[in-house]
Structures are given as structure tokens and as C-alpha cells.
């Protein structure tokens, strides 16, 4: 395969509050995130050559062709504008699509925005997820997302002998990290016991194992090298992109390991020249809509061997020593979806924003202590099926 020649940098990032019910429309949320991203990049919408939109199911908003609906708020009027979509993986995929807009040579400055407004869906956003299943094979069984992730979590625990107490530590860590995130929806100082005492949703998934549904938006500005160097002294380069979609028939694969995340990561690492991920990556934001998913995805990202992400971790001290902000390899310093919230597509892009701020040293109280040079953000979605990965370097 040919090689990538044009370098692309992130030069600005923006985000809104993540909340259960925002009064603002999806367009307004998009506008606020875009405005912040453009301002931090030091440019205006007039300087933007093209806009890439990311948003997950239209069923949340009850709007058909949601990308077209969001267009005004995203600054797409009279511009090349397109919406890309890979389910829950969309948030990290949106800047990937923006990356190829720039890397192809067609555009110099591209705005990537991800938005989600889940609260419009009544009685609960989970209802929208009942329509993601195959109408012939699986929908008649009446599954919902928590149900299938309980299967996956159970499988992960039983294959590797991982204890629920260990997995709960991820929720403890991320919700605590989120205390320092100004946009966070559910930051909290909780204990493993709180998680284990919380309401059982579908065993082994309990309420505090899950991230909350949210409204919110996030945005990044991408620029070609010659523009980036003119606009900022601290461009953060997108050095690797990867994505991978597995079969529709999720019932036919072993759920203990996300091979599709591994393939996406291999693609991104190869492009970035990374051979030993745990050594070469300084900060990571794997997708954590459920606490076990952080472990699952960190293994898919090859930051730990299969089944070993939580090996030897017994209590809070252990997990913060390994994956805290001053730990060996900081994981989800933002607070992740568990703490900051989970407006699907926006949550994925929030992770890319976090890596951008961490690599620029602009993460404030969330700043990791290892002077990071290389970071990775990842999202996941569809029917436990798609992985999207971005590697960035300061």
C-alpha cells in the first residue's frame, strides 16, 4: 500500500457540558463545541474549508437525515459537509474522516464535530437501542444493550477469571478522575462497595458499572502542516488512524476479546510506527461506556495482554498506581464516559479532545504526570462490532 505523505494536526478542541437533559437543541450544542474549537485554534468559521459531522442513531432525536438537520449549527452552510457514521465508534471516526479530507490534499482546514442529544428519546434513550437488532434473528428475543453487554462482561470475566471487584475499580477510578473535568456529568468519589451495592441492571452489570446517557457535543479543528505551523506552536499530529468492522452476526463470535479493536489498533500503530504499544504510548483513552469495556478495549489496543489488564490489581491503590494520572500508564485521565458522561458520538470525540489537551499540557488538574508525547483514543460501537482508533503525537 502507498504511504501517507501529508501531515495533519489538531489545532483546536471544544466541548460542551455533558448533561442528562440539556435545554439546548442538537444544533446549539454543536455550535457551542465548534465555537470553542475554532476560538482555541484562533480562526473563524470562514477559515474552515469543509465540515465533517458525527452523530449516532437518528432515533434519539426523532429526526430523519440528522446530519442535514445539524448542518446549520455545525457551520456547514455553503460548505462541503458530510456526516459519517459507525454507531458508537463515530466519535473517534469523525476526526478520522476529517483527517482524510486534509491528508488527501483537498482541504487545508477541516472542522470535525460530534453531537448527541439522547434526552429527546422517550421514555428513555435505551428504547432507541431496541431498534438496532436484526429484525428476523435477534429482535424477536427482545434484547437491549445492557442485556448483551452483560453477556460480554460475563464472558470476559469467566474466560480470564477476572473478579467483579476488580472491574468495579475502573468505575471508581474514572468517576474520581472526572471530579476534575469541568464538563462532567457524573463525577463522584465512590468505592468498590458502592458499585457492588448498586442496583442490578442485568447481572453482572450494575448501575454504577454503566455510563449515563447524556446530551453534549465536542469538536476539533484539523489543519494541514503548513497551516498548523502558522497558527500554533503546539500542533498535535494525527500520526495513526485505524478502524475495523466485524460481522453483523455477533452471536457467532467469542465475546471475550474485541478482535476488531485489535485490527483497528494495528492499522493505526503501523501508520504511526508503533511496535510496542505499552512502552511507546504515554496516555490512553479507551472507550469505557461500561467499566469492563476499559479493560476489554485496553487489551484490544494491546496495552495489556489478553485478560491481564487487571492482573494483580486488588484495590484502589493498585489501580491508581497502574492507571491513575501519576501511574505507570494513565488511562482515561478525563474521567471517561463513566465520569464525564456518554453522549455517544460526542463522548468518543471528547476522548480525542482529552488526548489533545494532555499532549499540549493543557489538561489543567487532569494533566498526567509523565510528560506525554504519544497518546491514543479509541471508540467502539455497532453490535459489539466496530473499533476506531487515533494515535496522536505532540
Amino acid at each position, binding site marked *: *500500500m*502507498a504511504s501517507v*505523505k*501529508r501531515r495533519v494536526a489538531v489545532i483546536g478542541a471544544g466541548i460542551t457540558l455533558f448533561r442528562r437533559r440539556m435545554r439546548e*437543541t442538537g444544533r446549539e450544542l454543536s455550535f457551542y463545541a465548534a465555537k470553542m474549537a475554532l476560538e482555541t485554534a484562533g480562526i473563524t468559521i470562514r477559515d474552515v474549508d469543509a465540515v465533517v459531522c458525527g452523530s449516532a*442513531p*437518528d*432515533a434519539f*432525536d*426523532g*429526526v*430523519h*437525515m440528522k*446530519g*442535514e*438537520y445539524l*448542518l*446549520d449549527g455545525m457551520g*456547514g*452552510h*455553503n*460548505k*462541503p*459537509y*458530510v*456526516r*459519517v*457514521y*459507525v*454507531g458508537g465508534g463515530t466519535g473517534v*471516526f469523525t476526526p478520522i*474522516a476529517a*483527517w*482524510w*479530507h486534509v*491528508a*488527501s*490534499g*483537498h482541504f487545508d482546514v477541516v472542522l470535525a464535530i460530534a453531537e448527541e442529544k439522547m434526552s429527546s428519546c422517550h421514555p428513555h434513550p435505551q428504547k432507541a*437501542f431496541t*431498534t*438496532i437488532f*436484526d*429484525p428476523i434473528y435477534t429482535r424477536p428475543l427482545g434484547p437491549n444493550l445492557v442485556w448483551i453487554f452483560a453477556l460480554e462482561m460475563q464472558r470476559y470475566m469467566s474466560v480470564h477469571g477476572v473478579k467483579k471487584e476488580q472491574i468495579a475499580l475502573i468505575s471508581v477510578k474514572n468517576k474520581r478522575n472526572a471530579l476534575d473535568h469541568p464538563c462532567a456529568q457524573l463525577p463522584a468519589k465512590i468505592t468498590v462497595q458502592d458499585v457492588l451495592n448498586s442496583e442490578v441492571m442485568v447481572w453482572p452489570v450494575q448501575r454504577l458499572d454503566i455510563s449515563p446517557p447524556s446530551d453534549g457535543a465536542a469538536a476539533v479543528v484539523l489543519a494541514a502542516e503548513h497551516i498548523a505551523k502558522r497558527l500554533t506552536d503546539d500542533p498535535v499530529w494525527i500520526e495513526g*488512524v*485505524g*478502524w*475495523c*468492522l*466485524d*460481522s*453483523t452476526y455477533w452471536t457467532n463470535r467469542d465475546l471475550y476479546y474485541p478482535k*476488531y479493536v485489535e485490527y*483497528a489498533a494495528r*492499522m493505526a500503530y503501523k*501508520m504511526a510506527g508503533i511496535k510496542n504499544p505499552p512502552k511507546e504510548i504515554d496516555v490512553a483513552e479507551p472507550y469505557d461506556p461500561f467499566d469492563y469495556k476499559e479493560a476489554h478495549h485496553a487489551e484490544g489496543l494491546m496495552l495489556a495482554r489478553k485478560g491481564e489488564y487487571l492482573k494483580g490489581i486488588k484495590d484502589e491503590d493498585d489501580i491508581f498506581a497502574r492507571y491513575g494520572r501519576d501511574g505507570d500508564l494513565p488511562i482515561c485521565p478525563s474521567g471517561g464516559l463513566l465520569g464525564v458522561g456518554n453522549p455517544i458520538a460526542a463522548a468518543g470525540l471528547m476522548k480525542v479532545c482529552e488526548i489533545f489537551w494532555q499532549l499540549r499540557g493543557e489538561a489543567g488538574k487532569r494533566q498526567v504526570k509523565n510528560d506525554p508525547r504519544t497518546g491514543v483514543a479509541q471508540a467502539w*460501537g*455497532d*453490535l459489539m462490532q*466496530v473499533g476506531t482508533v487515533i494515535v496522536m503525537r505532540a
Partner: protein
Amino acid sequence: MERRVAIVGVGYSGFAPQTADVSYKELMFEAATRAYEDAGIDPRRDVNSFITCAEDYWEGFSIFDEFVPDQLGAVLKPTCTVSADGLYGLVNAVMQIQSGLFDVVVVEAHSKASDILTYDDLLRFAMDPIYTRPLGWHAYALAGLEMARYLYDTGALEEHCAMVVEKNKANALLNPLASYGAKVSMDDVMASRPLFSPLKELDVAPLADGCVVMVLAAEEVARRLTDMPIWVLGMGWASESISPEIRDWCRAIYAELASQMAYDMAGITSPAKEVDLLEVDDRFSYKELQHVEALGICAYGEACRLLEEGIFDRDGDLPVNPSGGSLGVGNLLEASGLFRALEVVLQLRGEAGRHQVPDAEVGLAQCWRGLPTASGAVIILGVEREVGA
């Protein structure tokens, strides 16, 4: 652009008002199989990336992206959905190749409109839930209003729009993929049932099912795979606001912007002279005239005169919609634009059969995303002129 990209394989399936005997997956499988055969490739070995173009509400699923990899041979490969017309998939495939990331990319778009029970309601759900949906309009009322404004501003007549229908349905009679070919006269169209005045029943393209798959490759691979690569010479896409209250009602600005971007890339300064055939969106008859003008073929208000002169006929100086267009082939939803690109590919290859246009070397396909949007894309395709010719 430094890296040239060509279409090296095309496949299609369906193209009927109903395809009750097959599912959307089977439609996709058949079209994909034909495209891979046409390109002479094995999708599992030779394709680097797959793009499907779909909207959840058309499909009746949330996250339709889930349901695409198996029938395309895309399992465990980079695969994604572009929520737009197939032409948007095409331009993203070109960018993926030009970025240097991939050498071979596959694009798919389809319509399974016959599965949709509530088409009118879906269109209503595409309107802004606060400002326009509560008005209770059928989305086609926007087309009626726009048509009235277009006729008022340009001086074109309803009869001209009827002539578009007459021409396209006649072209469709020669196209085996077209479901709605017919010998109708301008008078028949004028006499058809009023829908959203001045729009009449025969001014509107009826729905159809169909699937198109294309294989794109970087130059070095394209030359290995085929003697007849169809080069992507130019491409562009643009949107205007979906809010009808703030956009232009006479001109299709989105098509102006998209075509200008495509002409700049292709180095085309005089499209009427340099392009040999056009496939433009004609889901409503007046849209063909409006789009031809937006593409800079002539000034606003002049398309009707060129139409009268027969310039846009299949054997005219600049054939427009020789396939029969949406009026003749049917409204293929998100496959509408990719079908137009397919028609241009077949024409440039000389494989269009009875509706072949003579000596076409450069063709343009344009899509509009349909009501209530003001978004669209343009792609310009060409064959290599023989040395010395």
C-alpha cells in the same frame, strides 16, 4: 491532485419498483459480486476499505452500519457508513485513496424503497421538529413552492418541465435498468393530476429499488486491473442550510458550489464545451433545468430554451439524463447519485447499449439529497484519450 483514482469495476442489482424476492442484503451481495467480477478482484484479498451510504430511517434500523459487512465481503476490514447519497461515498473513497492510506476502496449504495411503509412520514421527520414540521406540510410541498419560484424567476413554463418528463421517460424506454420508461407527451404530463401546484403527478419520480457497487483504485493498481479505467477528473460537494426560510428558492447554490469545486479540480473552465454528457438529479422535473443551470452549462433561465432546441436530447449536443434519470429509472433514495455515476461509467466505456451516447469522453454525474435538503455532490469522470486521437 497527485494521486489519480479510477473506477475499475461496477455492479448493480434490483432496479425495479418492487424486489420482494430478495432482501437488501441479497441486493447488496448480487451487486457487489458483479462489481468484483467486473474489476477482477477478490474482496477479501484485494480491497482495503469499504464505504456504504445509508440513512437509518430509510432502512428501518438504528445504526444500519451494523448490517453491511458480511454481504460485501468486508468483515474485519475498515468499513464505514457515509450518511448521504452514494456520490458522497464515492468522493470519500477517492479521498481515502488520495490520502495514501489505501489503494482499493469499494462504495455501495442502495434503495429498498419498497420495504418502506411510511415514506411520506419519513420525509416529514426530516424537517426541523420545531420550525417546519409543525406546519404539517408534506415535504413535496417544498418542491411545489420551489418550482413556482423557479418558474417565476426564470420565465420557464410548466410546459418545459413537462418536456423534461417526456424526454427522460422516452430515454428510459431504451434502458433495461429503467422501471418507468414510457411514451408520454408534454400534454399527458400537463394533464396529469395536480399534486403540489404547479407540481403534477408525472413531474415526480416514483420510487424504485436498486443497488450499485463500485470499485475504485489508485492509478498503479487501476492500470493493472483494467484497460479501460474511468478516471475521476473532478469532484465536489456542498450543502445549504436545511432551513427553507433562509435558502435560495430559485438557484441550486449547493450544486453551483459543488460543481465549481469539481471543475476547479478537473481544470474545466467551459463545462458546456468540455463535458460530453450530464446525469443530473431530476426527482422533480424542474430540478433538471435548475441543476443544469447551477452546473454552469447555461445562465439561469436558459435551460428551457436549450431543452426546446433539443440540445439535451440523447442525440443532442449535450445529452442530459440519457439513462432516463430518476423520472425514468425511479427515485433510488441514497443510490440515486451512484446510479448516475454508474450510467456515466457505462456510457464512457461504450457499454450503454441502446441508449449509448456517441463518442463520450467526459461525463458529469450530480446528485441532490432530496427533500427537504439542499445538499448535493458532483463527480466528473473521463476516459483516457487515445494517443494521437
